[in-house]
Structures are given as C-alpha cells and as structure tokens.
C-alpha cells in the first residue's frame, strides 16, 4: 500500500473507533464525568477540607492530577479492550484481516482510538475540576507528554487483554482486579511519603505511581519519584507492549484459526 493508502486505512480505523465511543456516549463519556464529580465533592470538598494540606497543596489540588490520570488510564484501556474484543466476538475483525492493511496500522489505529477516548475523558474531568479548584500548570511539556504516553501505554494494555480474552468476563477481570487496585495504590489520593518505608518500597514497584506523580509534577511541580526515570520507564513499556502486540497480531493469536 502507498503511504497515502496507509494513511486512509489508519484514519478509517481511528474514525470508526471514535464513532463507536461517541455513539454510546452514555456508556463511555458520561459515567466517568459523574464518578469524578463525586470524587471531587466527597474526597476533595467534604473529606479534603478536614485533611488539610498534602505535599504543600490543598487536598483538592493534590488529588485533581491523580483523578485526571485515573480517568485517562481507565478509559484508554477499556476503550480498546471492549472495542477489539467485540470486533473479535462479532467476527468483523475478519473485515480487517482479509484487507491489505498491515498489522502495525491496525494496532496504531486501535491505540490512537483508545488514546483519543482517554484524553477526551481526561479533558472532561479537567474541565469539571475547574468548578472545584484553580489549576496551575507547572510544566506544560511534562504534563502533556506524560498523559499522552500513558494513554498510549494503557491502550496497548487493553489491546493485549482483548487478544487473550475469550469471554466478556475476561474483558473485565484485569480492569477490576489489577488496574483499579494499582491506580488506587498509585498515589492518586496520597503521597507515598506518608507510608512506612517498607510500603514505600513496595509502592515503587507500581508503574502507575510513576505516571500519576509525573503528571502531578507537570501540574503542581511536586513528585514522589524521579521524572526522568518515570519517562524512561513509560517509553520502555510502550516499546515492549507495542512489539508484543504486533507479534500477537502476526501470529493470529485469538483471531485466526
């Protein structure tokens, strides 16, 4: 395929993905907006006013970056896992497999589609947070790049989950039992400096901690971890997961007999 044809194929997949999650906006865009508003009210306003400061900021200010990142992670992941699994389930993955679209274009299309939803929900949550606090931006480049890379990383994670999923139960196992606990324990609501030394060490094994803290650094300028190390780790994970996803696609795992 020529570069122009590849671009058309790529944009076809991306626009189909965007069409899908906007068509069912009541299931994809509205729930995170409501959930995060409740977090802002309950944890930020009601409980946060009693907690006082965290890391030198109001508790509300402190948790906003973590909640935005949590929305991005959850939505990027769930968009790709549910979309690609339903493509397998309804067998219209065959439309792509019989066509000349290369695997890397298929994968990129799904990842960009998932990232657009993750970033879109992140944007909605950011706008909602402005009703509760004033956001300052410490480092725009760090903020934008880490949220973008995180959306890409979790879209890839969702893709791999979908390839291995054999039922709708398999689609929800990882988000429920792995992603949500790691996000909650990833420093969204607290600084790991509050933890005993042993648990601080354990927390540093959680990759989501690095993403949340890097994003928080971009907005507030405070972080529990080394930003350069966090970026290297995220990029490293993306490269590994992208290569693994391509391997799964070319071997036909879960999609070809």
């Amino acid at each position, binding site marked *: *395929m*020529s570069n*122009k*044809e*590849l671009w*058309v*194929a790529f*944009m*076809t*997949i991306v626009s*189909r993905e965007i*069409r899908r999650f906007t*068509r069912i906006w009541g299931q994809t865009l509205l729930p995170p907006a409501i959930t995060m508003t409740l977090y802002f009210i309950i944890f930020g306003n009601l409980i946060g006013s009693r907690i006082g400061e965290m890391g030198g900021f109001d508790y509300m200010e402190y948790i906003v970056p973590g909640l935005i990142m949590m929305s991005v992670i959850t939505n990027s992941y769930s968009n790709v896992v549910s979309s690609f699994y339903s*493509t397998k389930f*309804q*067998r*219209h993955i*065959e*439309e*792509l*497999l*019989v*066509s*000349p*679209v*290369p695997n890397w274009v298929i994968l990129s299309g799904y990842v960009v589609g998932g990232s657009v939803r993750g970033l879109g929900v992140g944007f909605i949550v950011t706008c909602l947070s402005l009703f509760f606090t004033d956001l300052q931006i410490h480092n725009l480049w760090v903020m934008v790049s880490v949220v973008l890379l995180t959306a890409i990383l979790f879209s890839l994670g969702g893709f791999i989950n979908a390839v291995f999923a054999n039922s709708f139960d398999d689609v929800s196992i990882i988000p429920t039992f792995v992603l949500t606990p790691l996000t909650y324990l990833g420093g969204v609501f607290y600084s790991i400096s509050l933890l005993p030394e042993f648990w601080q060490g354990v927390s540093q094994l959680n990759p989501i901690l690095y993403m949340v803290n890097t994003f928080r650094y971009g907005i507030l300028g405070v972080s529990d971890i080394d930003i350069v190390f966090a970026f290297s780790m995220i990029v490293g994970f993306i490269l590994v997961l992208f290569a693994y996803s391509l391997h799964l696609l070319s071997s*036909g795992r879960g999609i*070809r*007999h």
Partner: protein
Amino acid sequence: MTSALKIQDLRKVYGNGFEALKGISFEVQQGDFFALLGPNGAGKSTTLGIVSSLVNKTSGQVSVFGHDLDADSSAAKRELGVVPQEFNFNMFEKVKDIVTTQAGYYGIAAKEAAERADHYLEKLGLWEKRNDISRMLSGGMKRRLMIARALVHEPRLLILDEPTAGVDIELRRSMWEFLEEINAEGTSIILTTHYLEEAEQLCRNIAIIDHGEIIQNTSMSDLLAQLNTESFIMDIAPCLQAPPHLDGYKVSLETGQRLLVEVEKNKGMNPIFSQLAEQGVEVTSMRNKSNRLEELFVSLVDKNLK
C-alpha cells in the same frame, strides 16, 4: 495466462491434530465461475479461510493472480473479495458505513468510497436501507450487504461461501443474475454451495473436496458426462398395485400413482412411454428425482467413503 487462484500442496493440521487439508492442489482460471463443493467438514471453508488469510496454513502455497499470499500478501489481498458463510459485520453500524469503512481499509479515500458504496448498494437493492442499522436487515439483505462490502474495492476474484444459504428462491435467482453479470464483466468467482442446482447452473469448472482431498477437478460438462444413470419420478394413472414391467429399465413403485425409473445414459425415454401405454398406464407428469450434479456428487462422495 496467470491463474486467478493457484493452490499447491496445501495442508492444514489443527491444534487438536485433525488434518483438515491433506495437500490439495487446484487452479482457478481468470474469468472462471468455479464451484468448490464437498460435504460438511470436507475442508471447503478451511481452504477458503486460508486463501482469505483468516486461517493459518500448515504448509503449501497460495497465489492470487500470481501474487504469493506469503511473500506479497498486500497485492494478493487487493485482488480478493470475500463473502463468508456467516454474518461478520458490525451489527450496530449503518449499512453504508459498513461498506465505506471496508473501502477505507483498502486505502480508498472517503469521497470515492461513498460513491462506490452507493453504486453497489443500489445494484444489490439496498439503497433504501443505506442509513439503517445493519442488524435490522432481513437475512437476504444481510447476505447482499456482505456482497456489496466484498465488491467495494473491485476485486478481480470473488469468493462466495454459501451466499444463498437461507435466501428465498426469488432472491436467490436475482443473486444468480447479479453474479452472472459481474462474472461476464470479468470478475472470477469461486462458489461453495449446498444447492447443487446453483453450482450446475452457474459454474463452468468444479472441484469436489472430501476428507481434505480433492476427489474431482474438472469442467462441469465433463463431470456431468460421467453420470451413467438418471432417475426420474413419473406420476401415473390409474393407480397400480405392483410396478409395471419395463424391458431394459429398472422400475419401482414409490406409491400407487408414482413410479421411479432409472434410465441408463445410452438408452432413450421413448420405449418407457410406449411400454407403459401398451399396459394402459398414462404418464401425467415427470421430473428428475434429483438434479444431475446431486446424483454425481452423492455417488462420488459415497465412493470416497468406501
């Protein structure tokens, strides 16, 4: 001239050890209307699945218009349109979106994709349904949608895996006309079907596959010439208690007013009528017991089983 499809020594062994294809080879010439027939589980869908890149082969070679499916898969896939046996489109998408999206996968820009989608939806009688959600279509319409989708990138080889299954006779005949039309315009077609009348009417060449092996690969006319006997059902009057004696013919009485007569290829029909008339039996109507290809198909598959 390059073959539209060339399959050489194709083998498929599934993970559970089942050997679905045992090294089959056949060719489909450009412009042909080719039937790939076989009983359920014979290996037809596996063969077409490998050609369509939906099934990984164990070994062997497949080329489409000279493009090897392994070495030059992009070019090979461009030449191919696939209409599968089961519905495999997004049931929540609009009819036209399904067709234009498929065009996009072939790198066809949005404006041209929309024009082509309109053209094929109109040709297949789906124009008025273009903005409907696909799951709302009837079974026949869904099949036509899959044909429109397979044609939108204008492939030179169209694979149809039981395209008329579950389609009423009127619609089936209109689909036959459409397929004959696109074949006449140069599109090579491979058809699998359980309606052998369909294969006999449409196809010029045929391969019969059974237990993963090709047991016949010839022209339709040569195959039908192999038929040694044809069976006819005759409705008669008056009602008989025992079958009449017909010299040189095997006769049985199906019911009192229905005879089954087996006629060998080198014998005519006239002696049957004259002998029946002599015995005071009138033939009120007559038809083939089954179509000719069906008789041959059953005998070939039975022979292979033995």
